[in-house]
């Protein structure tokens, strides 16, 4: 299962953090800092998989933002990498050429999208079209209920 999902920029600021396992508030901060320190040192040619404490961290950098998944070591790492790619693809379509600023100003939308994509630490939906359709529907419903 996925334990947490982070989006961090090159300076170490966490833009989005979604936790699927319970951690103390102080521990969350420590984890974020540690993950950042581990990843920032690795050159891009190294593998995208790191052994971190007793978890497995899979990451990829897109335009200055690290997309980080922390999961159990028994999970299929390459499938996780594909998940990251699908998420980025969906974000790109939703925000039309997404950039870091989109993530900052529309964080609640990113969370909503993430909730359509991963639930309880497992993959929920593998089709980009369905996720985007759903987001559009919910957006319409919200406008109507205002």
């Amino acid at each position, binding site marked *: 299962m996925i334990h947490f999902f982070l989006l961090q920029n090159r300076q170490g600021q966490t833009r989005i953090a979604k936790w699927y396992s319970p951690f103390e508030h102080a521990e969350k901060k420590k984890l974020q800092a540690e993950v950042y320190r581990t990843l920032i040192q690795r050159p891009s040619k*190294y593998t995208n998989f790191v052994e971190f404490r007793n978890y497995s961290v899979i990451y990829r950098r897109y335009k200055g933002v690290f997309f980080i998944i922390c999961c159990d070591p028994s999970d299929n790492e390459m*499938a996780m990498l594909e998940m990251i790619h699908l998420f980025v693809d969906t974000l790109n379509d939703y925000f039309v050429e997404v950039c870091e600023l989109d993530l*900052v100003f529309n964080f609640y939308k990113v969370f*909503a999208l993430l909730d359509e994509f991963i639930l*309880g630490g497992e993959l*929920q939906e593998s089709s980009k079209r369905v996720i985007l359709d759903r987001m559009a529907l919910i957006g319409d419903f919200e406008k109507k209920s205002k």
Partner: protein
Amino acid sequence: MSIKLRELIRNVRACKSSAEERKVIFKECALIRTSFKEKVDTGLRHRNVAKLLYIHMLGYPTHFGQMESLKLIASPKFIEKRIGYLALMLLLDETQEVLMLVTNCLKNDLKHKNPYIVGLALCSMGNISSADIARDLSNEVIRLFRSGNPYIKKKAALCAIRIVRKVPEMISDFIEPASSLLSTKQHCVLVSGIALIIEMLQLKKKTASKFRKLVPQLVRHLKNLLLAGYVSEFDVVGITDPFLQCKIIELLRLLGTGSSRASEEMSDILAQVSINTEPSKNPGNAILYECVQTIMAIDAEDGLRHLAINILGRFLLHRDNNIRYVALNTLCGVIHTDTSSIQRHKNHIVDCLKDPDVSIRRRALDLIYALVTKNNVSGLVRELVNYLSVTSGDEEFKRMLTDKIVLVTEKFTPSKLWHLNTLLSLVEIAGEVTRESVAANAVLVVGHNATLQPYAVHRMYSSLKKQVVPSEALRRLAIFLIGEYGNHLVSAEGTASANKNRNSESKQEKFVQKTPEEVIGTIKYIISRPTCTPKVKAYVLNALVKLSTRFSGASEQELIAGLIKKYTSSMSVELQQRSCEYTRLLELGNEAVKSKIVSTMPTPEKLIRQTEKKVGEDDDDDDDDDDDEDEDEDEDEDEDEDSEEEEQDTRSKRKHRSTKKPAKKTTPKIEQKAAAAAKPA
């Protein structure tokens, strides 16, 4: 006056310093707090909570917002519910008691007509529900399994995963609903359903028998995916829904282990997937990886297994680091069943050991350790030791590598000389990270083989002199050997014997016979260095007193006595004690007694295994007690102290013992003294 979320974000980003940022945040927090206290519902509560969430994401404390989020969840407006649930997931987790208050709201929302609201409730439940909430609401979730809407079904399935994780007793309730989920054609429901079944199988292996009847269905689904052609919705670089394929194969793995009938049913489709999947892109490799793991786990026939190992072999040669990592990982898992076929790839694995990426290096190390056999041990260990000498920086990796080398040498040793050589090389190259047992085992091997003694002492002496800053382990080992076997250093036969054992291929220089003054001079140099620890100094004093019998000349005796005497007023009690006693011993002049005390140390019989035991845990009586017994009858109190010192010495070296030898018979006096001597050690 409340500002929009966007404004707040812009203001915070415009701050030039963290103090300014704190000011803005605290001002906004105060405004939000006052607005929360207001009785009248201004309709802006969701905006305030959204701002609060942003502040929380920046890392500031926001506990006062928890109750507000509960109020929002209870609101009938969708936009407020949405923010409320988001706040719930961000600000709270299952360990907080406030979560219990949400149970009723969740129950109502799960029964709601609007599927989006049901979705919201399921989402929150799936992410943060505690065991109590899980128990209360499980019936609702099971009911939602039967809903017609796939959107709700998939969320319910994933919610169920959390429920069974938190309350494993409820697994039996979910078996039937989960199996029924698989009869759908919807990919999302399939993915979630399979994830639920996988979770149940991992928590309770006995359920496998109930799920095995689903294997034909799963095989059919997989076949459809393979033959589907291009489905734009799920297509990823030409492969239809790789996520679903991976999940199906994972579930087949769990169902196929231990059941030959199920394994038979799935072998065909696994072979098909392995052959037809495109390995050029990442999704294809993900599927192949999953496939290989499954083939190795089930009772597959040989042809299929060979196919899997070939795929792994191809992975090893891939340029992409990720794929090599994954291949090494899998090979580690299957090494025990198919060792021979993996030996072919030995060279590639050794190359992986030299990769700059530390993740790959670690995997390669584990794999090499598993690959070592009697035949290739000398070649592989030579590679490993060479690698150890060029690797630098990564301390932890060095330690792991030395540990593995030691384990391997203990298991397969072609000859005593080779064993000794390897241990000595380890101490020379990586002394800082080797365990105590490495030096101790080297001493043991030397002790058992008299022919190797001159070689060992000559080699250690040269290393000691050559290295600019020798490691602590190297110093201690070298000094101990010099003390024990110093006579070989200064004799012609000793030097000749050492040169005979020297490996002429390696770059070792020829050993030269030393003079006693040279040896004492080296020791003096070692002890005078500022980097010399008190422990090493203690070793030096021991070595010196032993050398007093090994070297016969009068001038050497004077030098030794002089050196030892310097420490009679040392600040360290240990050194002072040793120095005083040895000086007294030397002054006594009784040659017979002296030679008996400082004669060669008896060696224990068994190799010391690397265990996790700490100092003082296993204070066995050992061989020395016998010698002590003999000596005790002859000598008086002083000499007794000396033998205790020697015993203490060996105790400090023999920290780890895996076998408890039966205690040899000792007199109570000795045992008391041994206990007293061992305490300060």
